């Protein structure tokens, strides 16, 4: 368990640290590459507002969880480390849930169980176990932030498409000109609102991503 005693000379945004932020956006994206946290991504992306609130909630839980676990990494007994991580994540999620209930009640009702399910979001436990347990707080914070953004941008992109084509709105505001479209026979696509369509959209994002970033394509 002896850690290599490196002298803190590394700049805050060294190349390595920048990589921590950048990787989850593309090469190591939690949703499109690691395919984690899919269930919440499918369920709450019918409206951009929900996707944004969900992203902020996940970001808070992920950053705080990563930093706390990283600070405690030399104190946590190995045998109960998963339980410790779960308790920390669960406590943070309950905090988020309570705050949402108090200040954005309508959004909290729409997100319903999915706020609670952040506890079981594989991305969070995955980062705690794979990164925060073995790294210092600052890199852990960056890692948490990067992964939350990596999760969030996919959510928001999917939500933008679903809200525009499914409800003709963006951020709950009717897009100008929709009245005219409806009058000439355009209809909102109800299928976009259903969960399978989110999966297809995520699939399209993965497709576009892999066609641009050929490293991601498996050799077999």
């Amino acid at each position: 368990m002896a850690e290599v005693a490196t002298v803190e000379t590394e700049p805050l945004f060294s190349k390595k640290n920048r990589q921590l932020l950048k990787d989850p956006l593309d090469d190591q994206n939690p949703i499109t590459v690691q395919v984690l946290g899919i269930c919440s991504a499918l369920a709450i992306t019918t409206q951009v507002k929900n996707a944004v609130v969900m992203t902020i909630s996940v970001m808070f839980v992920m950053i705080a969880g990563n930093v706390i676990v990283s600070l405690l990494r030399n104190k946590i007994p190995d045998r109960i480390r998963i339980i410790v991580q779960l308790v920390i994540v669960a406590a943070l999620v309950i905090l988020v849930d309570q705050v949402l209930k108090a200040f954005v009640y309508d959004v909290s009702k729409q997100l319903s169980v999915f706020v609670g399910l952040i506890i079981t979001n594989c991305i969070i436990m995955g980062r705690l176990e794979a990164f925060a347990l073995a790294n210092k707080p600052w890199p852990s914070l960056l890692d948490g932030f990067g992964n939350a953004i990596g999760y969030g941008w996919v959510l928001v992109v999917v939500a933008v498409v679903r809200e525009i084509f499914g409800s003709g709105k963006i951020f709950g505001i009717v897009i100008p000109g929709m009245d005219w479209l409806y009058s000439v026979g355009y209809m909102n696509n109800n299928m976009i609102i259903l969960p399978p369509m989110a999966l297809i959209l995520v699939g399209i994002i993965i497709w576009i991503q892999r066609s641009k970033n050929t490293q991601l394509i498996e050799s077999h």
Partner: protein
Amino acid sequence: MALDKNSNGYTFGFSIAMVVIVGAVLSIAAIQLKPFQDENVKMEKMQNILYSISVVCSREEASELFDKYVVEQVVLNNKGEVLEGVKAFDIDIQKQYKEVRAKARTAEAVEYPLFICEKEGERVYVVPMVGTGLWGPVWGFVSLKSDLNTVFGATFDHKTETPGLGAEIKEDAFGDQFKNDVIYTDGEVSMKILKGGGGKEDPSGIDGITGGTITSVGVEEMVIRSFKVYKPYFETIK
């Protein structure tokens, strides 16, 4: 003394400290945020009452509009007699219903609130109700026109009914069926849930939810039971 991180003692100590700290933080947060959350729940209740008399509003407007439309609040006992000194809005009928089912409260001690509203010159009577669905409680607000028999509007909600099946009672398509239906026929509650609805011949029939029979039956039981209690009071004010 260097602590052995993997000893049983350390593990127990760590767990206990962690639980105490997490517990304390969460309790403090819960207590601090409670007033805001209660306010939201209160506004939502007002919103629901207003919705049953076809007033659609945001949560922020609810308080103001509630004061505008609701002109009188009455509380009844289970014989339909007016109880004095109780505020209808403060009664948590869901809690009382739960207590009755848990035998912590007798059926005689249940209080029945009634909200009397005035909309476009007509008196509308909003009856809150609570019952049991398939997985958990269902509740709703049914409002009657000034003849105290014809339904003005109805809105239902549920805690954990199955999405797509029982949960459909929340949709307007279900609640709107109650509009202009008749509650009492020949002095008895004639409202019932039928397959296919009552059609024109039966102005009390409501089409149940396909695949949500137990929820539908729960709603029916709730509506009948509640309106039975209010009947004696309605007779006195007719």
